Every structure is written in structure tokens, then in C-alpha cells.
């Protein structure tokens, strides 16, 4: 089946192109629209330029890094409980 085989290719190029266009558009549109009536926020910090970009990027990276730090204490061998109950 031809259409099924087309599905099997993973649309890498298309994805990256769309991604960078979206990224650039979001940065520009945020600056353009921020003080217009299009945007209505409840907290003053949401009006900081590119607040959601920074929040998304740093939120994501902090989440991973803090979790990795936590992992130092709580990541154990797969059979942790089995081994403990045997001893």
C-alpha cells in the first residue's frame, strides 16, 4: 500500500521549517500585540515582553535540571524493593 508506506517516513524537514517559522512569528507578534487590546492578562508580570517564551524555555530546563538533582537521591536500581525485602 503506497499511502501506508508514505506514513512511515518521518516528516523531519517539514517539521523543522514549521518550527522555526512559528518561533520567529511568536517572538515578533508578542512584541507587536503586547500593548494592544488583543491581549488581556490578569497579572502585571504577564505583560513583560516575551514572558511566556522565557517561562516555557526556563521552566522546561529548570524542571529537567532540578529533577536530575533530585535523582541523585531517589534514583535506585530497578529491583530496589525486591532486593531490600530479600535481605
Amino acid at each position, binding site marked *: 500500500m503506497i499511502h501506508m508506506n508514505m506514513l512511515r517516513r518521518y516528516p523531519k524537514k517539514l517539521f523543522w521549517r514549521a518550527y522555526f517559522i512559528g518561533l520567529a512569528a511568536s517572538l515578533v507578534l508578542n512584541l507587536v500585540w503586547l500593548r494592544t487590546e488583543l491581549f488581556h492578562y490578569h497579572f502585571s508580570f504577564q505583560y513583560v515582553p516575551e514572558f511566556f517564551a522565557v517561562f516555557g524555555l526556563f521552566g522546561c530546563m529548570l*524542571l*529537567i535540571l532540578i529533577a536530575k538533582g533530585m535523582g541523585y537521591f531517589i534514583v535506585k536500581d530497578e529491583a530496589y524493593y525486591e532486593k531490600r525485602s530479600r535481605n
Partner: protein
Amino acid sequence: MVAWIHPGFVIFLGAFLIPFIPWRRVKLAYFLSLPIAGLALLILTTLGIFGSIPLWPQALLKWRLPLMQYTLVLGKIDKLSMVFAYIYVIASFCMNIYALRVKNDWEHVAATLYVGSALGAIFAGDFFTLFFFLEAMSWAPVFLIWFRGTRKAQGAAVRYALWHHFSGACILAGIVIHLNQTGSLEITHLPWGWGGEYIGYHLMLLGFIINAATTPFHSWLSDTYSEATPSGSIYMTAYTTKTAIYCLIRTFSGVPLLMWMGAIQAVFALFLAVLENDGRRLCSYHIISQIGYMVAGVGIGTEIALNGAISHALCHIIYNALLYMGAGCVLVVVGTAKFNELGGLYKYMPISFWLYMIGGFSISGFPLFNGFISKVMTIEAAELIHNAPIYLLLEGATVGTFLHTGLKLPWNMWLQGRDEPPPHLRAKLKDSAVNTPANMLIGMGILAFLCILMGVYPKILYDRLPFPVTFVPFTTTRVFSNMQMFIFTFMGFWLLRKLVLGHPTYTLDTDWFVRIAGQKVIWFCEKPLMAFASFVDAKVMDLVDFVVWASRNPAVALRIKREEVILGMKRLLTNPAHLTEKEQSLEEKRRNYPGELPKFSLGVSLFLILLALSLYLILYLMSLS
């Protein structure tokens, strides 16, 4: 007016017939028809065949049973119970399709009983009925876990039962105290405070939040759901926790404690998800995180927040079942859901991948998917009460959710930048784009369609919520901010993608305290306590033996013991070599024991009897004074 038929009872009682149908096709058709029958009954109820449904919070009361001086209400029908019931049966239909290939009939029975009792709990109008169905709901999943058949699953099933019986006991204690204080069993909004007079409500809330897997009592969920059978776990994702949310909405809405617990839980579970290696455990942490939104919504307690909590619970049932089905597909097809063993499956299972991604976009809250229309409602509620920390926690959880379910899981399972899976997995796959069984794809497809339908046309859900909805989800502000946030979350993920690869590890959770304490208790019972018990046992038996031995000839026994003591002392003072003769004679006496018994004359015997009687008399007189 026709008598109402309880859809929960149809499904609950219908479950028992499944194993007795001899023809497999008929059996499966019957299994699929149960939720359809339930749905038909619900539609008839909505159409007003059984009486018109009044506006919230009034209710249409059906199926009342007298019990002692109380009345049990099995059918309390209002907008809240109806909207939950609809989603329950629709989700159950898709799950049944997904589970069609399961050979074990009893797994179908357990699943159907589970759905039936969940509906029973939803329609319960009094606390006893609610408790009965919650207990039924805590048993059915035990079997869904048990039927996996592995040793780990058996342990998990027992832990599941223990957690839920603890929460059940808390709820029952709360109900009894509430009944004692008020004399009423009706499910209503309960008072809340910190004083001692609220102890019953504290217990009840504890029971509900354990069932809802609220931090710090969330660990049973990730621990047990990931051990259940691939299709059994799908049912589990939907019913227990959402029913608990339903109970919280009915009884404890507007408790500020819940608002904070929910917001913290939404973020906390994500930290643990970063470290997770098992796909289904990762999805479990996302159930916990998403429940955080609902619990926070219940805690905020305004109309929009409750609407948000309800719609999020219902959307969550749909998309989370879809996510679990996606991870379950991989587990069924290649036999593992561990990230460190997977990757490169895209070429062989692209349809499951894209259906999973619809669930992933939904849970993350992409516009036009159903997570968006419910999640932003709760977030908006937090904005409207002007609580910045709650808002930031909930918005932060959105970032983390997209990171894990939208990026980390699909990346690790299907892609990892490879075109081919590891060779041992490749051997299990046909060279085709469709490796997933068709029934699974159909089940997932219907759920994916519902995700998009509700996301594109939210009115279908909003009109059925108990409070009127004036909220408009698709504003430029929200769509734009969410999209920008996701674009940059992706950037963060791409930069740190090496850090979120799977490693064969196990991440400890809050149940560590309970499990280690449990292991210590068992160790204490098995080792020191048993040693002490056998020591006491041995000593008592020695004493008894000695008394029996001595009573055979007390005079000689006394002599032997005296000589033993004297010999022991001599051994300390003199050279033991000199004492061998005496030891030999003592040994001789022991061997001849009891030997010739002394013969008493009649007079001596009478004297002994009189002596005993007089001793008894003295004791008696002493006790009188």
C-alpha cells in the same frame, strides 16, 4: 412515566454473564453492547422519559430503598452526575474495543464490574450507597492488576488493595461520625474547619484524597497502574481517581487546603516524571499531575473553577485513556514499555504514534484539542481570584506536561533519532506500517476523534456542565501565550534531550516511607518477635518437662538435683579430673530414675492428705481476711 433503569446496575449485573456465553463472537458482542445499553439509558434519561432533570443543585431522586430508619438513594440524577455518567460509558465503550483481544474472560468481568460500580457511585444519593460502590471499585482493579500474572503485579495488587481499604476505612469512619452528628446520610456539601469537631470530615477528606491520588498519597497510582495488564490499566486510569474528584466536588468544594495541595501536586509529579524510565509509569505521573488541576479547581470552589474541574476530569478520562493505550500498544507489540529498550519504532507503528500524539497535544493543552478547553478554565479561575502562585504552578505544570507526554515519551518510545528499532525488537515486528492490532487502533481512533471534537466544538461539553458557562476558551491571549510557551518548551527539550533519555532505574516515591516501614514491621515480626516467641515457648516446655520428670519420684529427683548443684560447685574449686567417679555415679542415678518408688504406710498417707487440706484451709482463711 416509566420507571428509571439504573445504567450502572445494567452494566454491573451484566458483567457476570460474560464468562457463561459459549460462543466467542457473541461474547464479545455482548461485552461491547453493555456500555451501549448504558449510553442508551442515559440518552433516554436526558430526553426526560423518566422525568425531567431539574437544574443544579436540585436532583431527580430515583430508586429509593428503605434501610432501618434511613432511605438509601441509588439514583440521584442531576447535571453533575449525568455528565460524568456520559463520559464514563463512552470511554468504557472505547476501552472495551481496545480490550477485545484479551483471552481471559474474567478480566472483562473485572473491567465491566469496575465501570458498573463507578456509575453506581456517580448516581449514589447517600453516603452508604456511595461507600458500597467505592468498595466495589476498590476490588475490581485488584484483579485487573493480578491478571498480569507477574510476581511484581501480584505485589502491586496487594498494595493497591491495602491503600484502598485504608481509604475506604477512613471514608466509612467519616460517614459514621457525620451520621452521628447530623442524623442524615444525604450527600451534600460538608462543613470544613480545623477543630476537633470536624474530625469526621477530616477522615472523609483523607479517604477521598487518597482515592484521588493527591500528593503525598499519590504513589499507589504510579506503583500499581504500571503493573496492570495492558488493557486493564486503561480502565484504571479513568474511574477511581475521577470518581474521587466527583466526591470532592459534591462534598468539599471551596476548601483552600485542596487548592494548594492540587497546585503543588500538579508540579511535583512532573519532577518524578523526568526521572521515569517506564512509559506507563510516566503516564501515571501525568494522571497525578492532571488531577492536581482538578483538585486545585475544587479547592478554588468558584463556579468557573468547579466547571473547570469537572470538564477537566472528563476530558482527562478521554485523553489519558488514549495516552495509556498508546503506551499499551507498544507494550503489547514489542513486549516492553521501558525507554532504554525502545526507540526507532515510528516506521513500524506510525498510526499509533499519531493517535498517541493527539492525546499528547490534548493533555498539554494545545488549542483545538480537548485539554485546552478544560485546562484553561481552571487556570482562568486561578487568575480570577488573583492568586499568582497558584496560577504560576498550574501554568508551569502545562510546560512540564508538554515536555513529558508531548516530547519525552514519543521521542523515547518511537523516535530517539533512529530509523530502526534495536534488533531484538525488530525481530518481533512485521515489515509493515501497521503492527498494532486493529481493535486497539479503532479504540484509540474513537478517543482521538473525541479529543478533537471536544477541542474544536467545546459547546458539546460546556452545555452539559452543572453551572452555566460564559467562558470563551479561544481568545487571542490564551491561544497565543500557550503556543509561544510550547514552542519554547520544545527548545528547552531539544537542548537537554540527552538528559531525558531512559536508564534502567527505579525512582523512589513517597511510598518509600510506607514500604520501608512495612518491610521493617515484617522483619520485626519474622525475626526478633518470632525468636522471642520461640524462646519463651522452649522455656515453658522445659519447665513442663521438668515438672513431669520430677513428679515421677520427687524424693530421688530432689537428691539428683542437689548432687548436680554440689558437683557443679566442686568443679569450680577442684581439678575436674578428680570428679569423674562422682559424675559417673550421678549418671548412673539418672539412668535408673525413677527407680523404686518409696512405699508409704497408711498413716503417712493420711498425714500428707491432712497436711494438704490444712494448707488449703489456711489459704482460705487468709483470703477471707
